[in-house]
């Protein structure tokens, strides 16, 4: 079921296979160091085998074994002198290819001017000694997530590319190992430069790449001799014994569908009684990739530094937006993690998120075993969805392009429309409903919907609610800010051609729909009846009021307004937006609907629309989530099988299925 293919070629031939004395390991480390590489390998520290920079093989474990179980790890003394006589420890190679803390960029704000400068990454050349099969699989998963598109983390790609990989076949296994179930091991098959299988006195050495071959022919040549048939057979037998020892602890057939069918299983609440939501599992996991960016500023408020750090879907702020967290309960977070790792990861990346290394089991401080939870929640059935294949493009968190405020318009007491010029030319190709990441140095960048496309720029309509949005709404003509985008997908206006269009919107939610109205007003004949239903808190909070009058008078658009609260001067409707059309006469069969507003309002609207006969395939909503990268790399907006930033923000109800409106997704 894996994308990391497990082929089993005949591995008992001695041709091109070598024997390296145990003492020769030092020659290998030395050769890699001479090549200008930082060599990372196993060492013993603080009661565990941890990965760290090594300078010679003397720093590696000798005669050290381990015992692992749920929430438990202990080192043991081995009777032999083996260097790799244990399984994976607390560290994963992720630490070097995707470091826990990285400075991404700096920004400056001097007067009107803003500047953004990506921090150059100069990773040293790496070499990894002792990579296990499950960890090679983890590289494969990370490559797919971070380096295979549609967006690419260039820093990851550079680090990964630089690494010389010395893999090691597992000749021992622990209770926590389940690579066999995930199809990722224990046999090392490909993805390495050199592979070692440890024998009593030395190693069987296999070459896996031209770089490996070069080392074998060159610096390592004097330490090698051809392997004997006995050595080759012993090595194969040891690895086979490891496979037998592990067995198949997690039957995975059909896990994806079975798991996603169990979103309401009572076990989620039960496991949440035990789970501390500490996040250890996600940070110990070799494939978890979620991050957050922290802005640091100086006291003058001029210079800012953006630092990216590992984060976790178990952290309280991870899915937080104005008004609360989408996953406020521990059970939501545990469900998110498990359903993503074993389920929706497939939909997003065409691969599993789990490689069966067992770290999340050993390093769960309260000993929760994912295999046990999975088997309790979702006993397997057979099915495997199609992988997604898209071409990668280079993009990063950092490439903010400076734009200048050329006009501002106070829409309401707290809402301002900024007209920006000099933005990235990419915006001129932007589409209706897309958004931009907007940054002022010192404040966290925020996703803001584009409310108009102009000849040489865009407009953003922003409600000043927190410090960052207040800083944006306070900008004056001539001030600068940073834009990244356009990002996300668009309203499918081509599907509205020849149909009636119903636009339902609440509050600031009119902003992403404004370009739609502009577009259809420009080409009005192609559409049927167009109705705009808009709700605001008070009459003073109605956005684009003058424009709205033009839409109604000249644009051929029916405009219906309502407010939550009004004074005596208001002669229009008072009440929620759905009340505007639940008594209307039009038929929904030929209609398509675009809806944007608070999530609860959108649910109510969707229900009303469905009641009027609009099919779920033609009801489109735009979702709000916590976003930092905007390109599906930071993980914050992950929702079921989608990244809202990359796959959305516009979704049809059909796409969302029963995840729409469900608490804690």
């Amino acid at each position, binding site marked *: 079921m894996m994308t990391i293919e497990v082929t089993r070629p005949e591995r008992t031939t001695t041709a091109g296979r070598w024997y390296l004395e145990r003492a020769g390991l030092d020659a290998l480390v030395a050769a890699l160091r001479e090549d200008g590489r930082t060599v990372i390998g196993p060492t013993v520290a603080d009661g*565990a085998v941890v990965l760290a920079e090594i300078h010679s093989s003397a720093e590696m474990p000798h005669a050290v074994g381990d015992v692992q179980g749920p929430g438990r790890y202990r080192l043991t003394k081995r009777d032999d002198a083996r260097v790799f006589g244990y399984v994976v420890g607390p560290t994963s190679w992720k630490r070097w290819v995707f470091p826990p803390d990285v400075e991404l960029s700096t920004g400056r704000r001097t007067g009107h001017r803003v500047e953004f400068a990506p921090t150059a990454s100069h990773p040293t050349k790496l070499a990894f000694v002792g990579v296990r099969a499950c960890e090679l699989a983890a590289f494969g998963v990370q490559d797919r997530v971070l380096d295979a598109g549609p967006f690419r983390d260039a820093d990851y790609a550079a680090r990964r590319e630089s690494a010389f990989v010395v893999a090691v076949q597992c000749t021992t296994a622990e209770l926590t190992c389940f690579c066999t179930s995930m199809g990722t091991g224990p046999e090392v098959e490909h993805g390495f430069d050199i592979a070692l299988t440890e024998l009593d006195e030395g190693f069987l050495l296999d070459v896996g790449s031209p770089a490996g071959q070069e080392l074998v022919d060159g610096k390592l040549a004097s330490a090698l001799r051809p392997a004997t048939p006995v050595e080759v057979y012993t090595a194969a037998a040891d690895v086979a014994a490891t496979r037998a020892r592990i067995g198949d602890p997690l039957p995975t057939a059909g896990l994806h569908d079975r798991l996603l069918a169990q979103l309401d299983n009572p076990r989620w609440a039960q496991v949440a009684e035990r789970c*501390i939501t500490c996040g250890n599992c996600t940070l110990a996991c070799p494939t978890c990739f979620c991050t957050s960016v922290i*802005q640091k500023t100086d006291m003058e408020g001029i210079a800012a530094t953006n630092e990216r750090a590992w984060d976790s879907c178990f952290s*309280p*702020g991870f899915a*937080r937006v*104005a*008004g609360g967290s989408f996953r406020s309960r521990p059970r939501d977070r545990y469900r998110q993690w498990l359903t993503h790792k074993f389920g929706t990861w497939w939909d997003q990346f065409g691969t599993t998120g789990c490689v069966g290394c067992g770290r999340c089991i050993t390093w769960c*401080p309260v000993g929760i075993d994912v295999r046990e939870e999975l088997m309790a929640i979702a006993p397997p059935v057979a099915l495997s969805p199609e992988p997604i294949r898209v071409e990668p493009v280079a993009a990063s968190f950092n490439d903010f392009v400076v734009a200048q405020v050329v006009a501002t318009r106070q829409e309401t007491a707290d809402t301002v429309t900024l007209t920006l010029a000099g933005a990235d030319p990419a915006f001129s190709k932007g589409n209706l409903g897309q958004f931009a990441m907007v940054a002022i140095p010192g404040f966290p960048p925020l996703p803001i919907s584009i409310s108009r496309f102009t000849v040489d720029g865009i407009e953003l309509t922003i409600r000043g609610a*927190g410090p960052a949005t207040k800083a944006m709404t306070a900008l004056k003509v001539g001030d600068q800010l940073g834009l990244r985008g356009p990002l996300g997908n668009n309203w499918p206006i081509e599907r509205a051609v020849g149909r009636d269009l119903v636009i339902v919107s609440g509050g600031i939610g009119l902003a992403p729909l404004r370009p739609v109205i502009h577009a259809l007003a420009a080409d009005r004949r192609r559409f049927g009846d167009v109705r705009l239903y808009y709700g605001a808190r008070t009459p003073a909070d109605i956005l684009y009021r003058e424009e709205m009058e033009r839409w109604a008078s000249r644009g051929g658009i029916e405009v219906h307004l309502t407010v939550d609260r009004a004074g005596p001067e208001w002669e229009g409707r008072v009440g929620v937006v759905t009340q505007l059309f639940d008594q209307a006469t039009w038929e929904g069969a030929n209609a398509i609907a675009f809806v944007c507003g608070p999530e609860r309002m959108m649910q109510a609207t969707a229900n009303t629309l469905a009641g009027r006969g609009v099919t779920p395939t033609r009801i489109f909503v735009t979702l709000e989530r916590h976003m930092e990268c905007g390109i599906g790399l930071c993980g914050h907006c992950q929702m079921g099988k989608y990244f809202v930033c990359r796959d959305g923000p516009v979704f049809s109800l059909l796409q969302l299925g029963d995840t729409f409106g469900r608490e804690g997704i």
Partner: protein
Amino acid sequence: MAAMAHPTEHGHGGHAHSNEHGHAARGGTPRPRVAVVKFASCDGCQLTILDLEDLLLELSEHFEIVDFPEASSARSNGPYDVLFVEGSVSTPDHLRRIGELRKQARVLVTIGACATSGGIQALRNWADHDAYRAAVYPTPEFVESLARATPIAEHVPVDFELRGCPISPDQLVELLTALVTGRRPQLRDEAVCMECKRRGVVCVMSAQGIACLGQVTQTGCGAICPRMGRGCYGCFGPREQANAAGLARYLQASGERSAEEVGQLFAGFTAYSEPFRSTITDLGGTRGARRTGGAGHVAGGAYPPPGGAATGRASYLPGRPRMEGIDDDGR
């Protein structure tokens, strides 16, 4: 003062804030007026201000320190733009003063475990205070002390809090920078474990069987206890939705620890913060309190409001720190 961060939007109604002092923060205009006061405490948190050796003189360029008795003979009775409060409310005099001070402060910041959680002295809250005092002190009439040592937020609204025993210099700098530049301080509310993992610290609980409160404790210290080879003792207090009961159950089930021993683990510097407080009580109260005749649980009831409308509001109870309230940018 235009550039200064506002406290959380839902603010503290009913308080007279004096904004006439210190408008605008930089460039020759008056600097925010800062004061530091203490209640029952060890002085370690205010010492952390003086421990910002590299920044101390720069700080004095951005803030006007008008009242900081530990560091300066110059005094002021307010009003203050920023008031740092160290220590817990432990005497009748404290009760009177905190209400007065709140009226003088535009932004009130509690610093450290005593101010945010009651501190180590709040362990007396499980004991019978009168018996305690009468039995040990020959002339108890000199001893002015309340039955419970309580966090500041139990009495007046608090705008920001810095956790820790003592507070972290990095978090202090972040808060000061945010105050002066008008943005929201970015203080993580995640578990200490996250910091351990980012720093590559081997988990002392999994690898050595040491009881560690890192999972339920708010980060900020830099994971120093696990880094130093021991378990976290919770001095930054419970993090958001800390599953203390779950951890307590596991510690009893897995480590041959009695309920009493597990209770003692939580009975530290932030014992009085929920959910540590009820976990201790559920596990039988503190050993020391039982010995001196305490009831083993915390007496209920809040103090009468010291003339402030906001006192006793549920939203200001410990365990509901204002800092964790999210802002409208969703960050």
